[in-house]
Every structure is written in structure tokens, then in C-alpha cells.
């Protein structure tokens, strides 16, 4: 390919060349960063929840009668719910999967500069293991006798033994066994001992984004006050959740003094978690497509402008022996050179953007094959964008050299 004359031509048209390169580099930077973030986000959708969320229902009651014994009422409610034939099990829990409620830092030491590890603490009773269908990986399960129950005011003591998830154990202790190890749920808190490790389940959006979706702790304690009660999580027979929800809610109205503040099928909680990220990813993608179209039109416009400006020169080349295909090739090659330079700069921009984003989100957005695909896409759009003005250039009649002054 005759690249030298093209380079000489570009040398004399530096401004135009720079404009094209900047446009391509900018588009590549924004496009590939968006696509990388979007694909990484959408990949989250394939992550396993670790629980049969289709068959789990959350109910959040609210007690408004101050004279009521909340503890007793909760006990009654749970008992009645479990009596519904299709309800398999129920447990109180201050946190709900997929929502990352109760996110805290857990520590391996109490020093000032001790490193914290993100986690979500589920305060619940021994039934939670069965409700969420978790399996024991190491150590032992919590039992009814481990559970500390009581009104917050009259129950100052807390459970001193906890179970942690597999990922949590991995993060805290690596390949060492977690059993018997001591951790702190706050720097100034009493130490707690790990007695068991359970299978991973997804805790929620905020940890998801950090690639720490499965770091959680179950603490066998149920506490309440007149103004604050835990949620109820209940597992029902497969496929009955939707039909059963109203029956379950009804139970909470059998006794006076409380109502259902909110209730949700966990499959919807999961969907809700992804909706926000999904629409963000989608917005990114739509903006990328718009940008791609604008860039394409921009390149078409710039090239068409060049062709119009160089009609006489193109006619001269044709008169001197250039075939139509030579003229096409000239413009396509010129564009490819600029695209290549633009892409290299664009990739550098992308790398720094995704590096920055990855740092911020604690999540790796980089993916070589997605980056290459984006570059290829941009290349194809560029070729299409140049194709039509180049075709017009190729169709300039050689006779214009003698016909126009």
C-alpha cells in the first residue's frame, strides 16, 4: 500500500488529522469505558444468589400499640405463620438478602489502624439456616440455645459466637480454618468467636459492586424494642410464594396492634437490586450508541468536506491514472491510519478511566476481549462513515481537470 503520500498529505493537513484523531480517541475512550462498565454490571446478573429466593418472602411488621408485649407478639406471629400449610419455615432477621442492610466492617484486631473487612451481619435465630437453605461448610450450626433473645433495654448481653460465610472466612483467614478464631464486629466491641462456616449467599447491591457479594455473618441474637422489630423471612413450598403472600399478610392482622409496613417476594428484592444497575448500564449503552452515531456522522462530514475541497486534486489523480478503487483506497487507508492512532490513544484513555473506576468501586472492570470488540466496532463504524464520501470521491470525473479553472 502506498502509505507515504498519505502521510505527506496528513502532514499538510494536521488540523484535520488531529480533529479526526481526537474524535476517534474520545469516542473510543467513552465507548469502551461505558461498555466495560455496562458488561461488568450485566455480568452480575448471572451471579448466583445462593438461596432459593423464588420461594422466600419478607414481611416487615410494625407494632403501634405501646402497651403490647412485642416479644410475645412476635413469637405468636411466627408461630401462626408457620401453621400455614405451605410455609415451611420462618425466622426473624434484622437484615434481608440483596439489600445489604446492616453493612459494617469486621476486624481481626482492635488496634487503631486495624484493617476492616466489609460484611453484612444477619441477627437471627437458628431457623435462618433452614429458611435460607444454607449448608454447613465447616464447624457447627447455631442452635436454639445459642440464640440471645430479648428486649434491647433489658438484654444488654450479645451473642458471643457467630457463623460466617465461606467468602468471609476466605477473606479473613485465607486457607486457615475459621473455626475458633476471634473477630470484632466493631473496634470497641467485645470479641466474638467463629463457630461455623456456611455456604455463600448474596448480601446486596453495595457489596456486589465491590465484588464482595458473599461476605456475611450470622449472629444468633434477636432483639427488639417498642419501636424497632426485625423483619421476618419465610420460605414457602416451591412456586407458592405469589399465591401465598396475601394469606401470610392476613396472619399479622389476626391480633390487634400491628400492621404490615412492607412485604416483598425475595425474587423481587433481587430484581430491584439489579434494576438500578441495569438501567444505569443501559443508559451507558444507549449513550454509547448515540456517541457512536454522532462520531460516525462526524467522520462522514469531515471526509465529505475534504472530498469537496479536494475535487480538483482527486480529478488530477484520476487523470494521472488512479482507478476508482485507488481513490477509495486512499481515503480508507488515510482513515485507517487516523483510526489506528485514535484507537491507541483511546485505549490508553480507557485504561486510565477503568483503572480509576475499578479503584473507586473496588471492582475490576477491565476485560480485554470487550475492549478489542469495542475497538473493532469503532473501526467498522469508521469504515462505513468514510465509505460513502470516499465513493463520491471515486466518482469524480477525471475530466474536471480540464473543465474547471
Amino acid at each position, binding site marked *: 500500500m*502506498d502509505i*507515504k*503520500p498519505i502521510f*505527506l*498529505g496528513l*502532514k*499538510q*493537513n494536521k488540523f484535520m488529522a488531529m480533529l479526526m484523531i481526537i474524535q476517534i480517541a474520545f469516542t473510543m475512550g467513552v465507548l469502551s469505558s461505558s461498555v466495560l462498565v455496562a458488561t461488568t454490571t450485566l455480568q452480575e446478573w448471572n451471579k448466583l444468589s445462593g438461596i432459593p429466593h423464588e420461594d422466600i418472602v419478607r414481611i416487615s411488621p410494625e407494632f403501634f400499640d405501646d402497651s403490647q408485649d412485642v416479644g410475645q407478639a412476635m413469637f405468636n406471629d411466627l408461630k401462626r405463620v408457620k401453621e400455614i400449610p405451605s410455609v415451611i419455615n420462618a425466622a426473624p432477621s434484622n437484615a434481608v438478602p440483596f439489600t445489604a442492610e446492616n453493612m459494617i466492617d469486621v476486624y481481626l484486631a482492635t488496634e487503631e489502624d486495624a484493617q476492616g473487612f466489609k460484611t453484612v451481619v444477619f441477627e437471627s435465630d437458628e431457623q435462618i439456616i433452614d429458611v435460607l437453605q444454607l449448608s454447613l461448610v465447616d464447624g457447627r450450626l447455631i442452635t436454639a440455645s445459642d440464640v440471645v433473645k430479648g428486649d434491647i433495654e433489658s438484654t444488654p448481653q450479645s451473642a458471643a459466637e457467630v457463623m460466617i460465610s465461606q467468602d468471609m472466612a476466605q477473606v479473613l483467614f485465607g486457607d486457615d480454618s475459621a473455626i475458633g478464631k476471634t473477630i470484632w464486629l466493631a473496634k470497641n466491641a467485645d470479641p466474638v468467636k467463629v463457630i461455623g462456616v456456611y455456604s455463600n449467599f448474596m448480601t446486596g447491591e453495595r457489596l456486589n459492586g465491590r465484588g464482595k457479594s458473599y461476605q456475611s455473618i450470622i449472629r444468633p441474637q434477636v432483639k427488639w424494642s417498642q419501636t424497632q422489630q426485625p423483619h421476618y423471612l419465610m420460605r414457602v413450598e416451591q412456586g407458592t410464594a405469589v399465591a401465598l403472600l396475601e394469606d401470610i399478610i392476613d396472619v399479622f392482622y389476626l391480633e390487634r396492634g400491628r400492621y404490615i409496613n412492607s412485604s416483598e417476594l425475595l425474587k423481587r428484592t433481587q430484581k430491584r437490586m439489579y434494576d438500578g444497575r441495569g438501567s444505569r448500564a443501559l443508559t451507558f449503552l444507549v449513550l454509547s450508541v448515540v456517541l457512536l452515531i454522532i462520531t460516525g456522522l462526524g467522520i462522514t462530514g469531515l471526509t465529505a468536506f475534504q472530498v469537496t475541497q479536494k475535487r*480538483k*486534486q482527486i480529478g*488530477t*489523480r*484520476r*487523470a*494521472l*491514472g*488512479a*482507478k*476508482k*478503487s*485507488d481513490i477509495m483506497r486512499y481515503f480508507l487507508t488515510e482513515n485507517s491510519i487516523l483510526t489506528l492512532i485514535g484507537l491507541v490513544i483511546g485505549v490508553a484513555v480507557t485504561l486510565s478511566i477503568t483503572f480509576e473506576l475499578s479503584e473507586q468501586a473496588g471492582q475490576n472492570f477491565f476485560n480485554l476481549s470487550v475492549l478489542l470488540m469495542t475497538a473493532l466496532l469503532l473501526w467498522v463504524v469508521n469504515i462505513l462513515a468514510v465509505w460513502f464520501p470516499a465513493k463520491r470521491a471515486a466518482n469524480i*470525473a*477525471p*475530466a474536471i*481537470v*480540464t*473543465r474547471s*479553472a
Partner: protein
Amino acid sequence: MLRMENVSKIYRTDLVETHALRKVDLHIKSGEFVSVTGPSGSGKTTFLNLAGALETFEEGDYFLDGHNVKGLSDDKLSEIRNQKIGFIFQSFNLLPDLPLFDNVDVPLRYRGMSAKERKERIEHALETVGLASRMQHLPTQLSGGQQQRVAIARAIAGDPLFLLADEPTGNLDSLMAQQVMELLEDINSKGTTIIMVTHDDQLARRAHRNIQIFDGQVSDIEKSVADDVIRSA
């Protein structure tokens, strides 16, 4: 070497048909220096475009080097222009972005010659027109006369069958025009055929042979006769 038989060119628009050339019969032999003259609008440029394979025509035959040019594909015509014809235009038509060396290189590249051969030919051609020392200059750094000499170098670098010059001195002052004309005569004296369209009678008279076009019709006049015609006009 170049033979037109019964060639006509009609430009058709929605409203009018212009018979730009009517039944032209013409034979130009190798080594000739032919001038083409005629009033404005008579068909000189049309003749040049057909002779230079820049435009196609529907009627008649045009033999170049024994081969009929009529009806050839666009690619084939490009090849013929590239290999058999050297063009010299009134407004020089150098490519402004390319140094002189690369300007002369343009037709040679389309011919697919080796870099070494191209370099030799370019240097030789630029030497012939006296601009070898300015190979890396851009066209805008040259005077009009110099630019036209570069265009001539570009036209002769590929050793074409003939040079086709369209008012080659039309944009030059008389001194430069003189130099360019002398250069063309010099090139012709070494054997290159030249066909030159001009409306300058002085120049036309310096050719071996003058072809006059009136209203699309060609009258071919040998040099001796041409001189008389021009003198008495």
C-alpha cells in the same frame, strides 16, 4: 500512433444537445508537435478530453498505438492515461500537499514500478526541467513557471506515447511562457510526441502542424500551410 476516425461527441442535457465534436478524422504520427487552435467553445477541450481518455464518446473509433480505446472500462482507461499519456494542464494541477519529488511520483506509483526505478525516473525528469535541486520543496514554494516545469517532469517521467498539453502557458507571463515552450520543444526534439491546445497564435505557429477546430469540426493544416493561414488571418 494516434488515429481518430469519424469521432463525434454530443453533450446531452434535458434541453439541448451540443455537438461538441463532429465526425473528426485525424492521424498524428510519432514524434510530431501538433498545436490545436480554435475559437472559444469550438471544441478544443472536448478534443483534448477524448484524446486523453478523460471522457468517453459514443460515435467513431479512436486508436491509440493500434488499440481501439472506444468502449473500454473505466479501469482500462485509467491504465491508458497512466501509461500512454502525459498531461500538462493550464493551471499546473500539482498536488499541493506533496513535495516535487512525490508529485512526479504520483503517476509512477499508479503504474506499480519499483521504488528504485521510480526514484531514477523522478530524478532524471526533474533534472530535465532543471529543478532537481528542489525535489523536497512544496509546489507553493515555486513560481508558476517552475510549477509548470514540475508538471512537465511529471508528464514525461513515465515515458508516455505522447504529451497532451492544455494551454500550458495560459497562466504564465511571457518570459516564463517562453521557457516552458522551449522546454516542450526540447522534449519534442528528443522524440516525444506533443499535442498542445492553445489560443496563442505565436505558440501555435511554432508547432510542426496546426489543427484548427471550428464548431466541432477539424481542419488539419500542414505547417507550411498553417503559417500562411495564420498570417493572412
